[in-house]
């Protein structure tokens, strides 16, 4: 239960970090360490070099930028949780991050680390997929922006190329009259979700659904944006029957498999229940903003 030996690098700038990653044979980037260090300890990961980003102060920030909220990849999850700008502009992220691990985990764990780790049962990747976040990847030839839907490729697999680092996460500001919810089922508080559903609903002046954002965790190789369910809700009056239809459409988008935590059928049923709860809570919150 001790990590294998590695060369340790603590660059002070992003440029330096990119240089080291480019030169190393087999480097892993160390962010908050709440997933990577356990993998080192059980030797699932045995990189030759570890490039620690914790000394790069420029990578931790939360700010409004061109109508979006930009979050530096090394921003701690606990900072996001307590940040008033996030609570005001992307409240579903606040709701989701509160369910990541425990406070002690969130004190160290970073937003970028969780998203780059790409566990399909994790909360933050699900919010990125659901809100159609833009992820900024920086490599030796500069930065590129990738939609979250293209970033997550499969279990723990992303479109990050060798030599690239996830440096920023850009989220749309929640429009007026938008409610939100992040509903999760986990066996114990702080565990990864058996399944979770993120929902936001925006109501128009007549109280009909103008837009919805829905995403599923824990029911497929990546977090899944339930785009068909979103489209089916637009223009509808958010009655219990419409929400039930929406929840069924979310469950239809799930791609669960059997594993030790439950069967695929069980997971699909859980997704349906969580989707109904999430949509109901999101609509209620949207109405409160009337």
């Amino acid at each position, binding site marked *: *239960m*001790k*990590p*294998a*030996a*590695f*060369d*340790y690098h*603590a660059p002070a700038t992003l440029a330096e970090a990119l240089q080291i990653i480019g030169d190393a044979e087999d480097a892993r980037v160390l962010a908050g*360490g*709440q997933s990577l*260090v*356990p993998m*080192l*300890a*059980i030797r699932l990961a045995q990189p030759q070099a*570890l490039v*620690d980003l*914790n000394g790069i102060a420029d990578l931790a920030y939360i700010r409004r930028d061109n109508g979006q909220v930009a979050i530096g990849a090394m921003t701690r999850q606990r900072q996001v949780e307590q940040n008033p700008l996030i609570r005001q502009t992307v409240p579903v992220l606040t709701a989701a991050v509160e369910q990541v*691990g*425990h*406070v*002690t*985990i969130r*004190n*160290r764990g970073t937003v970028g680390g969780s998203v780059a780790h790409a566990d399909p049962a994790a909360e933050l990747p699900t919010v990125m997929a659901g809100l159609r976040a833009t992820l900024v990847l920086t490599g030796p030839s500069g930065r590129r922006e990738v939609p979250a839907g293209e970033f997550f490729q499969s279990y723990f697999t992303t479109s990050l190329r060798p030599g690239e680092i996830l440096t920023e996460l850009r989220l749309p500001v929640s429009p007026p009259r938008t409610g939100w919810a992040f509903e999760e089922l986990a066996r*114990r*508080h*702080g565990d990864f979700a058996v399944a979770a559903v993120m929902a936001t609903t925006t109501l128009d002046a007549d109280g009909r659904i103008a837009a919805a954002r829905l995403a599923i965790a824990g029911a497929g190789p990546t977090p899944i944006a339930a785009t068909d369910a979103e489209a089916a809700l637009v223009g509808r009056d958010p009655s219990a029957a419409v929400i039930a239809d929406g929840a069924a459409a979310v469950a239809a988008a799930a791609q669960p498999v059997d594993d030790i935590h439950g069967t695929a059928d069980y997971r699909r049923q859980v997704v349906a229940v969580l989707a109904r709860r999430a949509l109901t809570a999101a609509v209620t919150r949207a109405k409160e903003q009337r």
Partner: protein
Amino acid sequence: MVEITLSVNGQTQTGVCEPRRTLADFLRRSCGLTGTHLGCEHGVCGACTVLVDGVSVRSCLMLAVQARGSEVTTVEGLGGGGELSAIQTAFWDNHGLQCGFCTPGILMTVSEFLAENPDPTDDEIRSRLSGNLCRCTGYHFIVDAVRDAAARLRAAEPPAADRPAVAEYA
């Protein structure tokens, strides 16, 4: 090998170790502070929780080299002069431990928690304790201890004079 200098409970500690040494192992082996316990060594049990610059972390998930220049507080830094701290006293009085293996981590978690939230509800206490596993108590007495600790800290009640000092039981 890297040289590591940090402050533990107000004292400067220097050691030389491989970069792969965790902060937990550094505290235990290089500093001789074995109050920080290692249960799972992969970030599940919470026994190794310490404060780094005032913030709780799992010291098995932080490399010692990452804590260079930091101020670390371990369970040995609670209390002082042979006296238990208010939180420790509350755990003693409420039977908030049995074998005690998880207790150092729980005390550090609770130290951070009560500094942030001096008057928590039982739900808040249970939620915050969820990152620390205890296999003896069933948690009820721990919750009682935290509630009592919060009340003591609010009242700034000093430990009772007739309570034996820790050293007598060492």
